[in-house]
């Protein structure tokens, strides 16, 4: 039997390092949309806690535990990352596989907020976006989910088909920020 080779969305486009900022693509991992049925929010949160050790996040928040994470991603919606959802969750929530739908780009470095400020219209300063934040916003024209685990690291999820544009645009901002710093 032939085997199908898997390719990540930004395959061949990353890593990119400019100035003190690096742009890479996180290894592919399970990403599932978890959307509680009506009135099942609390039950879902308990079931999540029981199955994966993570509750359902508040709007704008991300909860992590080891390699697992769950990030708010919209109205009544969160992305469970790093694990396939336990079958028991289906009783409380709609589950949809999103593992292949997004490229997960990782930006790291001291100037990372300056780079993102070129494209992202929300405040990502430590005061407004503390560790454990999840923001549904834009990267330029692209719809994005922006995760901030802490430090100078941001994870930017955009649709797989736009990985090329995302890498190109973020790289341009990295170059501009580095050139300014050298001024």
């Amino acid at each position, binding site marked *: *039997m*032939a*085997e*199908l*080779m*898997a*390719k*990540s*969305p930004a395959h061949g486009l990353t890593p990119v390092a400019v100035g003190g900022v690096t742009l890479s693509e996180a290894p*592919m991992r399970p990403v599932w*949309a978890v*959307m509680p*049925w*009506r009135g099942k929010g609390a039950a879902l949160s308990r079931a999540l806690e029981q199955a994966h050790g993570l509750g359902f996040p508040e709007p704008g928040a991300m909860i992590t535990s080891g390699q697992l994470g769950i990030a708010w991603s919209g*109205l*009544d*919606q969160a992305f469970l990352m790093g694990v396939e959802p336990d079958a028991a969750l289906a009783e409380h*929530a*709609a589950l*949809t*596989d*999103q*593992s*292949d*739908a*997004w490229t997960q780009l990782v930006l790291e470095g001291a100037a990372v907020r300056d780079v993102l*400020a*070129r*494209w*992202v*219209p*929300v*405040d990502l*300063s430590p*005061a*407004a976006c503390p560790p454990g934040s999840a923001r549904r916003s834009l990267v*330029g*024209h*692209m719809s994005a989910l922006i995760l901030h685990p802490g430090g100078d690291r941001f994870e930017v999820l955009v*649709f*797989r*088909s*736009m*990985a*090329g*544009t*995302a890498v*190109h*645009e973020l790289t*341009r*901002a990295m*170059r*501009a920020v*580095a*050139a*300014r710093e050298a*001024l």
Partner: protein
Amino acid sequence: MRVDGRGLIDRSQPVTFKFDGRSVTGYKGDTVASALLGKGVRLMARSFKYHRPRGVLTAGSEEPNALLEVGQGAAMTPNTRATVQEIYSGLTVQSQNRIGPLDRDLLSINDALWPFLSAGFYYKTFMWPRAFWEKLYEPVIRRAAGLGRITRDASPERHEKAFAFCDVLVIGGGPAGLMAALTAAKGGADVILAEETPELGGRLLSDGQEIDGTPAAYWVEDIVKELQATGRVRVMTRTTVTGAYDDGSYGALERVARHVAPADDLPPECFWRIRARQAVLAAGAHERPIAFPMNDRPGIMLAGAVRTYLNRYGVSPGRNVTIFATNDDAHRTAVELMDAGVKVAAVIDSRTGVTAKGDYRLIEGGQVIGTKGRQGLRQITYRAGSRTDTLITDCLAMSGGWNPAVHLTCHLGARPVWDADAKMFLPAPGAVPGLTPAGSCNGAMSTAACLSEGLEAGKAALAALGRPAPQGVSLPEAEDDPGRTQALWYVEGKGRAWLDFANDVTTKDVKLAAAEGYASVEHMKRYTTQGMAPDQGKSSNINALALLADSTGRGIPETGTTTYRPPFIPVTMGAMGAFAEGHGFAPERRTTSDAAARGRGAPMIEAGLWFRPSYFPAPGETTWREACDREVAMVRNAVGVVDVSTLGKIDIQGPDAGAFLDFVYTNMFSTLKVGRARYGLMLREDGHVMDDGTTARLGDHHYVMTTTTAAAGQVMAHLEFVAQGLRPDLDVRIISATEQWAQFSVAGPLSRELLNGVLDQPIDDESFPFMACGAVKVHGVTGRLFRISFSGEHAYEIAVPARYGDALYRDLVARAEALGGGAYGMEALNVLRIEKGFITHSEIHGRVTAHDIGMQRMLSQKKDFVGKAAAARPGLLEPGRERLVGLRPVEAEGRLTAGARLFKEGDPHKRVLDQGYVTSVGYSPTLGHMIGLGFLRHGPECEGQEIVMVDHLRKVKTRVQVVNPVFFDPDGGRARG
């Protein structure tokens, strides 16, 4: 000339640049204006209309005269103010709006014609013949009057845009702004301090004064250190806040790298969008010129500007300076020049009873009434009482008082308020929510008052943020006498007196406008062009409206101001459009098969943001038609593979998913069996068709909807709207899964044979009949299979997680080729679907109903659905509407074109007799002639009739026969297998 011991320039670093091809050396820290004045160059520009020689009027961004072209080739930027452009080694600047050298501009002939070039002259003069306006008059006028050239090529410059956020935005880094920023930061607020020039300090760097007993520049240094120590202040120099917008949003232009040689990756400018919870406007004031006769010669400038050149740049604009003032403030210019060793010829003060502040000649009650000097001031004539006399002088520093820079307070629609005592327009209270004006933009004209207002504004911003005032910010001691000012807007006399230097508008023009009935200030502006151009009348608006008020017998407040709009300074289009150049215009969406398709030489076409292969050229094929015909035949006779991942795929789950679909589709979905797919039609609320596609039922509570590529986003938004707004009673969850799946159509008589090579469990008609769907294993990977057809052939769509898309596509195409088939593109896909009469958004373009496309029967009578009531309106059900038909040429070689109009045979081809139009056409290799779809009045009733297709644009006229839109396999036997 340079003045020793003055200025903040770095005299150890000479910098050489080129002005009109000539090398000029200044110092680091100089602007083009200060460097040229330092070398005694006063002539820098030609005026807009009369091509009069001009020098600088100001030392700031409000400069109306000294506009230059900076840079070379397509990177040249016109209308750059010499007073803003800093010099660097290698900088190239040219004067503009001239023919020949600057000092012998051939167009200066216009100056001799000035009696004819009054306001509105070309409206009056170039009326006839009408056709000459566009072809002759306008180009000639535009060549003769104007500003810098525009380059025809796209600029290679790559600017940037960025967002910033803060608690308090302080606009202006002068005394008021510094105090506001310091207060806010010490009170715990995050502050952005935006300063237009390269250095903080504002007028404190321009005027020789003391704060707390030390020179002001030292105090500024200390404050800057204190600001830095708070760790809360982001200082943005070379940044001009250009506009105030809703909810604390501000636009700002940062000249990031205009002061250094261009370099790769270094953005010359950045356009900022700043969101501030509170703002302090400390924009300062603009000094007013006086409109006296012949007041425009190089060497005549504002008194405050002379002090700026002296104290900031170590330059005196003249060797023998005269001051013409209406106020005490301007006397400082004389004192400071004399302190610096520059000769002062006299101070002419329009007032009487004034005392000199130094050892200079004071002429009281005087007015300048004339000047001489062809390319630079040489002599002035003044009148004092009954006496008229002349003075030899090479620089005249004038001051008619100061206008508060209220601009930003007016950007949300407020009008400034006239203060009759101070003779100035002041910001209206509460003009911009959350913005507090402070300092001289608010009418505070002494340094002490500016410092105090800045402190108070900082406290006010903190209070609005719910923070207490900080400890340890004290008000420094400074000069507290704003002096007295007499209003003098213009001086009567022989010769032209300029109000608006940038547009060559004189007092005569404004009087003419008033006399001709343009009494409203907005009409006067448009008739005379006063207040237009890059400076937007910063130095002329108040004088012009004061003169208009006098000329119309009204007061200044009754006359009012024109509307202040953003941007406050000129902003390059490149900065506003940064990131949108070239490919940045829109994101590019690529399918997983993109690389494979390009690798096969397929030209890609854009479908929305997606790129899809148009066709796959085979060896020996020279035209797209050959490839397309081959690909169509391949699908009809063997098997073809095409990527259909771009179609929207929406996961719809929940106990009420079926009821939800019944509500958004016109037909029933709750009755669909699990493991089956159904074609569905959805309407907008106005009863017209929104989209169509197949929806499959994967489980009791789980459907996956397919939308067209074009409407994927629109349908997703529509479903969210319905779920949240119209049917919140339904328990349903919706999410896009378009990007999760790579999906390929495998179509043709051999499609099942091909698929059985990749599926772990082979399928047959029994296990997978037409419109079946279900989970499958594809080379061990869990995927989905749908037996649906957009080609009319026995066909499937096979989906795998997108990571496997590239591999599966290559595998499917290789297997298809082994079976005598292969990859096909959009052209063949289009022909195949037209042969079957399948619609796309060419047909459902937003103005058609289900009735129009022959699908009225899909509108269920048994249930309610979006658009049902509106679709039943009588006008939408008339048989005479334009309805879907098939079209074929009467002669086999006849040509059909999309967009062509349809007429009855024998009718003239006039709009009023139009019967319909063609939406889609293609050459059918299956049938051997062109086929088309279109909309025709009474459509299906006309089947069999011959009509005429006329394409007025492409000049095509073809006799066509109206036929059923399904050209091929009308009973659908091929797809059902």
